[in-house]
C-alpha cells in the first residue's frame, strides 16, 4: 500500500476549503486544525462576521445572501479553492453536499471532494435509484414506486393514480433528490394526489433543482433508525452503529440518540449488515448514512442513503469514540479504513454508553415549529462532564433568515440511557438563550417526559405528546407573574457591575440596563 506509507506521520491535506456555514463549518474547521491542515471558509454577505469565518485561517466572500448566489454557487466555490491553494473541499451537510454535479466539478478541477465520489452520490443520492439498489441486495424497501412520476404530463396521471391505489393511502409524495422533508407531501385520498404531486414537484424543483417525485406508503407508527457507514477506496465498508432519530417535526429531526433503545445485539447486527450491503453495492467511499423505518412488528424498511456527513453524526462519535470527520479526511486522501474505525465497527453491535443530541433551532414550538430569524441576546451553552456543544453562534449575533435556523447541537454522553437523560436535563437547565424563541422548551419537555424515558419513540412523538400552545400558556403566566413581582423587589447588582464603585440604586440599575441592552 504505497498510499499508506506516504500518509504515515503526515496529514491528509495541507489546506481544505469548507463549503458550508454555521455549526457544521466550525466543526469541520476544528477537525482541520486538529489534523494540522489550514482551513478556508466561504461566506455570504450576512455571514461576513459569522463564527465559521472567525474560526478559519482564510476567508473568501461568495456573494449576497440567497444561497443560490453564495453557498450553492458551485463555480465560485471551486474557484475559491483553486485561488487559495486548497487541495480538498468538504461540503458539510445541506447546500452542495449531495449534488453529484458539484462533486464532479471538484474532481475535474483536480481537487478532492471529501465525501463519496460523484458517481456514488449520483447512484444513491437519487432516492429512487437507492430503492432499486436496496431491493437488488434483498433489503426490504418501503412499498412504493421505483420510477419517477411524470408530473408534467397530464395524460400520465392515470398511471400514477393506479400505482397509488396499489400502494394504498395514506401515502407520501417524495422528491427523488430530496431530504429534510422538502418536496414531500402526505396524501390521504386519491382526490388530493394530483395537487400534491404538483406542489411537491415544484418545491423539489426550487429546493434541489430537480422536480422528480415518487410515491411511498406511509408507515405509521414507526421509528426512524439510521446506520452510520464508512467506506474506503479498496471497497471495504463498515457500520459504526445506529442512531434513533424518531423525534421529528415536518420530517426534520429534533432529537437523536445512539444507540437505538430496545434493539438486541442480533437485531443490531442484522440492521448494520443490511446497511453495509447497500453501501457495498454502490461502492461507497467515505461517509454516508443508511436510513430505515422500524415498524412496531420489529421489521426494518430501507428509506434512503444520505451520501454525506449527517447533522447528528456527533452522537455516534460520542458512543464509538471515533472522530468521523477525521476519518472522512483520511479516507478522502486515499487511506484505508483506520484501525480505530475497524475496531469501532467491531464494537458497534454491543455499544458501551449512550449519547443524546437535541437540535437547538430558532423556531417557535408553540406555532408548529415555524422557523424564525433574529438577534440572540444571551447565549450560554452548557458545559461540564459528558457535554458537547457544536455551535458557531455567539451572544448578540444575528441569525439570518436565509438559511437553516439550527444554531446549536447540544449532545450529552453517559454510561447508559437513564444517566444520559439525567445529564441532558442538567445540561438543558444550564442552557440559556434570550432575545429569540428557540426549540429549548420542547427539548426540556422531551428530557422530562416519561414516554421518552420509557423509550416510547415514534415519528408521531411530537403529535402525540407535545401541546406547544398549552406549554407556552403556562410559561407566559409565570413570566408575567415573575416580571410583575420583580418590579416590587429591589434588584441585586448584576455580577458584571459588582466591582464598580458603589452608587445609589437607581444609577446602578440604569447602568445595568445600558450595558445589558442588546442592539436590536
Amino acid at each position, binding site marked *: 500500500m504505497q498510499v499508506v506509507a506516504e500518509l504515515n506521520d503526515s496529514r491528509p491535506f495541507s489546506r481544505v476549503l469548507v463549503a458550508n456555514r454555521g455549526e457544521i463549518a466550525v466543526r469541520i474547521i476544528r477537525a482541520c486544525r486538529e489534523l494540522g491542515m489550514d482551513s478556508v471558509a466561504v461566506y455570504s454577505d450576512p455571514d461576513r462576521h459569522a463564527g465559521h469565518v472567525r474560526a478559519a485561517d482564510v476567508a473568501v466572500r461568495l456573494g449576497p445572501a440567497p444561497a443560490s448566489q453564495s453557498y450553492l454557487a458551485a463555480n465560485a466555490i471551486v474557484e475559491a479553492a483553486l485561488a487559495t491553494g486548497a487541495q480538498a473541499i468538504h461540503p458539510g451537510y445541506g447546500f452542495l453536499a449531495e449534488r453529484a454535479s458539484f462533486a464532479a466539478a471538484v474532481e475535474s478541477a483536480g481537487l478532492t471532494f471529501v465525501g463519496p465520489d460523484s458517481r456514488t452520490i449520483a447512484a444513491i443520492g437519487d432516492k429512487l435509484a437507492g430503492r432499486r439498489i436496496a431491493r437488488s441486495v434483498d433489503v426490504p424497501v418501503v412499498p412504493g414506486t421505483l420510477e419517477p412520476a411524470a408530473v408534467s404530463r397530464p395524460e400520465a396521471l392515470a398511471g400514477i393514480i393506479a400505482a397509488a391505489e396499489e400502494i394504498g393511502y395514506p401515502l407520501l409524495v417524495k422528491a427523488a433528490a430530496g431530504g429534510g*422533508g*422538502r418536496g414531500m407531501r402526505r396524501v390521504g385520498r386519491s382526490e388530493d394526489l394530483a395537487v400534491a404531486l404538483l406542489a411537491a414537484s*415544484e*418545491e423539489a424543483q*426550487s*429546493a434541489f433543482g430537480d422536480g422528480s417525485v415518487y410515491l411511498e406508503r406511509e408507515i405509521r407508527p414507526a421509528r426512524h433508525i439510521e446506520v452510520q457507514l464508512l467506506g474506503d477506496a479498496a471497497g471495504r465498508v463498515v457500520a459504526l452503529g445506529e442512531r434513533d432519530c424518531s423525534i421529528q417535526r*415536518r420530517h426534520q429531526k429534533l432529537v437523536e440518540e445512539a444507540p437505538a433503545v430496545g434493539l438486541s445485539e442480533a437485531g443490531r447486527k442484522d440492521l448494520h449488515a443490511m446497511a453495509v450491503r447497500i453501501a457495498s453495492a454502490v461502492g461507497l467511499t467515505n461517509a454516508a448514512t443508511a436510513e430505515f423505518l422500524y415498524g412496531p412488528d420489529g421489521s426494518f424498511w430501507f428509506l434512503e442513503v444520505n451520501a454525506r456527513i449527517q447533522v447528528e453524526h456527533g452522537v455516534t462519535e460520542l458512543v464509538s469514540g471515533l472522530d468521523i470527520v477525521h476519518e472522512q479526511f483520511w479516507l478522502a486522501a486515499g487511506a484505508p479504513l483506520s484501525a480505530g474505525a475497524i475496531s469501532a465497527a467491531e464494537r458497534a453491535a454491543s455499544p458501551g454508553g449512550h449519547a443524546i443530541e437535541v437540535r437547538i433551532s430558532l423556531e417557535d414550538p408553540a*406555532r408548529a415549529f*415555524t*422557523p*424564525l*430569524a433574529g438577534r440572540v*441576546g*444571551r447565549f450560554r451553552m452548557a458545559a461540564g462532564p459528558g457535554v458537547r456543544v457544536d455551535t458557531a453562534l455567539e451572544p448578540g449575533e444575528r441569525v439570518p*433568515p436565509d*438559511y437553516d*435556523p439550527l444554531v446549536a447541537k447540544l449532545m450529552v454522553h453517559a454510561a447508559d440511557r437513564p444517566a444520559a437523560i439525567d445529564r441532558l436535563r442538567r445540561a*438543558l*437547565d444550564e442552557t*440559556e*438563550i*434570550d*432575545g429569540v*424563541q428557540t426549540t*429549548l*422548551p*420542547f*427539548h*426540556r419537555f422531551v428530557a422530562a417526559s416519561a414516554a421518552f424515558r420509557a423509550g416510547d419513540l415514534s415519528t408521531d412523538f411530537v403529535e402525540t405528546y407535545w401541546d406547544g400552545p398549552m*406549554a*407556552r*400558556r403556562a*410559561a*407566559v*403566566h*409565570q*413570566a*408575567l*407573574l*415573575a*416580571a*410583575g*413581582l*420583580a*418590579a*416590587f*423587589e*429591589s*434588584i*441585586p*447588582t*448584576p*455580577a458584571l457591575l459588582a466591582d464598580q464603585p458603589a452608587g445609589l*440604586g437607581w444609577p446602578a*440599575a440604569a447602568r*445595568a*440596563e445600558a450595558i*445589558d*441592552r442588546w442592539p*436590536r
Partner: protein
Amino acid sequence: MAQVTNPDESLRVVPAPASRAPGDPTLIVGKGSATTVGEEQAAPVTARIEWLDGEHAILAEEPSAGAGPDPIRTRVMLGPVRRRTSDGIVIREVVVDGWHVEVELELELRASLRDRARRGVPAIGPGGPIEILAQLPGRIVGLSVGPGDAVVAGQQLLVIEAMKMHNELRAPRAATVERVAVAVGDGVELGDLLVVLR
C-alpha cells in the same frame, strides 16, 4: 418603573405585542400576589420572587387549595428593561422553561384610566379590515389574488417560501381584497403587511 416604590400600587402585566398570542392572560400584580383579569372570582395567586443573581430568580408560587403543601418553584431569567414607551409602559424580557416572553408592565391605575378614555370608540367588527401580516420571514413566491378580488374563507392568498418550505397563507373569512402590499419575489420580515382584506 423598573421598580414600584408604593407597595399599595398594582401593575397590569401582559405579553408585549411581539410575544402575544390569542388567549394570553392579563395579570394584575401587587406586592406578593396576583389575579388574572377575567377570573376575579378565583382566589389571587400568592407568590414571591427570590433573587439568585441580578438576572436569575426563583418564582415561588403558593399552591392553590388542595394542591399540596409545597410552593411551586420555577427558575426564571429576567432580562433587562428593553424599552420604555412615552406613555409609561415598560417592556422587559423573561425566559421561563425555555420560552422567551416579552412582557409589558404598566401601573394599573394608569392603564384603567386609558381604558376608560378609549371606551366608546367603535371596535373593529366582522366587517372591518383584516391585515394579513407575515408570520415568518421569507420570500413571496406566489400571489393568488389581486385588489378587488372576492375571496372565500380558506382561499389561498399567497405563498411564502421560508427555509425552502412553501407556506400558504389563506383568507381567515370571506372578504374582498382591498390591497396587496407585496409582489412575487419580495423578501418579507416577520410582521410585514402582506394583504388587507375587507
